[in-house]
Every structure is written in structure tokens, then in C-alpha cells.
């Protein structure tokens, strides 16, 4: 209420109001970050993969997210609040996963793929829908990263050690 009154008086002293709204002290953001755009809403470029590596970027709009009630103890809360999260996407049609990784994902996670070819990830880790969604996405990223994992080539020294060990 006071704020409304204040706005009314200040708008009457229009010249003063404009100078106050343009007030820039010595520690304003323009002085602290001289080279910055200072635009909090600037569009951020999505990380572009090179076709073989998974960057970690998941296009949320291409996932099918559904919510349901979780199981286990919890009384009225667990019976009524839809905190369990089910995230699905069609693996073959997912353009954000490099083609080379899709075979590996199929191999390593046969239990996660449905007959129709949908990759399914569920989470009911926490009491919060949003945190469960974050958990599901984290698990998806882990699965894809595990498929993308290429162990380091065995070095000459290691081979030598193994040969020595077996011969001794």
C-alpha cells in the first residue's frame, strides 16, 4: 500500500523518478563486468555434438514424461500425490543420440527397451515430482555415457608387465 502511494508521489516528480531509476553506483554490474552483455535472457547455444560423442544435452520437448502415484509406505501422501516419473523416448528416432551409440544402448540395456522400441526410465526416488524428473534424466544421461565409454587403449608398459607376470 505504501509502495502504491510512493509510486503516485514519485510519478508526480517525474524528473526525479527517471534519474533514480537510472541510478548507477560505482559497483553497478556495468562497472564490475565491463565486457559482458549483461543480458540474463540471452539465448544460450545448445552444445553441438560432433556426431559420435554425447554432449549431455537432452531435448526435453522430445521426451514423453508422465506422472503417476508411487508405491510403498507413506499414507495419504503416497496414495494421492503423483510423484513417480516415467520418461520415454523412441530410441531409433532420437536424433540427439549419435547413431553409433544406439546399438550399444540396445545391447547394454535390453530391459529398458519396450517392444515398440521405446527407452523407458522411471524414478520415484524422492517425494518431489521435479526432483524425480531430474533423477530420471540423470539416469538416462548415465546410461548413454556408459554406452559411449571407450576404455583407454592398453599401453605397452601394461602389456609388458602382464607378459612378465605370466612368464614368471
Amino acid at each position: 500500500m505504501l509502495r502504491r502511494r510512493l509510486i503516485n508521489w514519485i510519478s508526480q516528480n517525474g524528473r526525479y523518478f527517471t534519474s533514480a531509476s537510472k541510478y548507477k553506483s560505482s559497483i553497478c554490474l556495468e562497472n564490475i563486468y565491463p565486457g559482458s552483455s549483461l543480458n540474463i535472457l540471452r539465448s544460450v547455444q545448445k552444445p553441438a555434438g560432433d556426431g559420435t560423442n554425447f554432449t549431455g544435452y537432452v531435448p526435453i520437448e522430445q521426451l514423453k514424461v508422465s506422472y503417476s502415484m508411487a508405491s510403498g509406505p507413506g499414507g495419504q501422501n503416497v496414495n494421492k500425490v503423483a510423484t513417480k516419473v516415467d520418461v520415454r523416448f523412441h530410441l531409433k528416432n532420437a536424433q540427439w543420440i549419435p547413431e553409433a551409440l544406439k546399438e550399444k544402448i540396445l545391447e547394454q540395456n535390453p530391459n529398458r527397451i519396450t517392444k515398440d522400441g521405446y527407452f523407458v526410465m522411471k524414478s520415484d526416488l524422492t517425494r518431489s515430482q521435479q526432483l524425480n524428473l531430474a533423477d530420471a534424466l540423470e539416469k538416462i544421461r548415465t546410461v548413454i555415457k556408459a554406452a559411449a565409454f571407450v576404455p583407454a587403449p592398453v599401453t605397452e608398459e601394461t602389456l609388458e608387465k602382464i607378459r612378465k607376470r605370466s612368464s614368471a
Partner: protein
Amino acid sequence: MTSSGVDKALSLVRNLPRISFNNLRDSVGKRKPRERCRGRYGGKTHGCGQKGSEQRQAYMRLGHEGGQTPFYMRFSKEPYYKGWHLQREYLPISLHRIQMLIDTGRLNPEEPIDVTQICNTKLFKLDPRKKQYGFQITDEGADCFDAKINLEVQYAPEHVIAAVEKNGGIITTAFYDVMSLQAAVDPEAFFKRGVPIPKRMLPPHDALVQYSDPKQRGYLADPDKIAEERFILSQKYGYELPELSQDPLKDMLLRRKDPRQVFYGLMPGCFVSLRDKKVFAPKDEELKRFYEIN
């Protein structure tokens, strides 16, 4: 026309010289001369009592209880007490509560919501003198939060930031030192004091890191980096960042205080006269330099 008492008083104020130390005086009876210990009633023991350590001026140290373990030594020093007097407290408000305040019309989502607005609801008791430095938002009710607001608080965890930004809002964490907070918490009482609006001080060095961190949406962080963090958080929590560039409330959402400002639309160093409904800005060069007014 007979001049009334008010007119006489006003003419006095107009004609009398400026107040300074050479024309000020204490009220009568406020300063009494010290009574010396002389004569029949002030003499003999001269206010020092009878015998003992007190008359002999051999006082025991403060807190000494004659040998009994004194109060200040009865309790062991614990490491978790260290720095307790320097600890800052932030009163928690849940997102559920904020949503309820907006739904019931106590908070206006079309104006920036800061400490002053939350305190103006008169539902929260924030006392800067009790080392309470502001509000923190907890994540209770994050699942059903759907208000688009420009929120400025003192601390918010990641989940809360995600919940606010998911709905197209903007959240900032800002620091208010004790003097500025006292003004912000009760602006009406502050203006009635007739004291110029203070310039907000920088946070103490242990809090400076937090308030310069784009991850915590600090008010001293680079907005460029905050834009990046907004995207990262949207990827983490699984939502699409709403497009705000064409939003009609964009200007309100982007509205931010200068790090030295306490109130939106008011510069430090200004007086606000509620009675005259006027705002007085400093004109003196030294004051302008101090309050960083260009």
C-alpha cells in the same frame, strides 16, 4: 488578520540563525554537577563502605564468585559455538507460502517482490537486530508453484531457483547489511525518522563468494553467466526455458536494483517526507560523491 501561534512559530523558524553548537544548550536540570564527598554526610567512608576488600579498593575480578566455579567457567568451550555471534540467519519461507500469498492477493506478482514487499504483508517478523539478514525460500510446494514473479531474496537452493525459472520468473539473491535491512523491513518507520536512505554495503567476504556466484543467482554475478546457468538448470531439472523476450512483463521481470540501492526507484542519500509527499535528493558535492550519485 491576527497572526496565530503557528504563524509566529514559522516566522521564528524563518528568521532565527542556523542551529550550531554555539546556540544549543542542554535542558535545565539534565546536567547536574557532581556531588563531592565532603561534610558530615559525604565524608567518613566517602561512599566506599566498611572494611573488607571493597573499602581497601582490592576488588575481585568481574564474574569471580569467591572461589566457587564461576558461571562463565561452568560450561566447556565447544567448536560449534565458534563464530555464533557472526552467523547470519535467514528466515525460511516455502514456495507454497509464496504461492498462497500471491493467490490471496497479499503479494502482487506484477511488481518485483523483494524483502520490503514480503515484510509489508505483515505476516513475517524480520528483526535485523537479531542477526536476521533476510529471507530464504525453501522448496516445499515446488511441484505446484506456478507464479511468474521477479523475486529477490537472500538465499534460494537450486530446486527453488529451478521452480521459479520454470514458470518464467526471475530470482535473484541479494545482500542487505543491517542498516539497509532496517530501512527495507519497515520503510514507513524509517522515513518517519528523517534519516537519509543508506547506501547498501557489500556483503562480508565469506558471503561475497555466494553473491557473486551465477549458480546462486547472486546480485553481483555476471548476468551473461547467469543466462548460461539458467540453461544448465533447465537441462538438469527437465523443463524448457520459457521465451521471455516477447513477454509483456519482460521489463518488470528484468527490473533490478543497483547493488547500492535499498528501494526501487529511490537513490541512497535521499530523504522521503511522507507528510509533504516529497523526495529530497542531496545537492552537496561531497554527499553526492559519498552516495555515488552521478
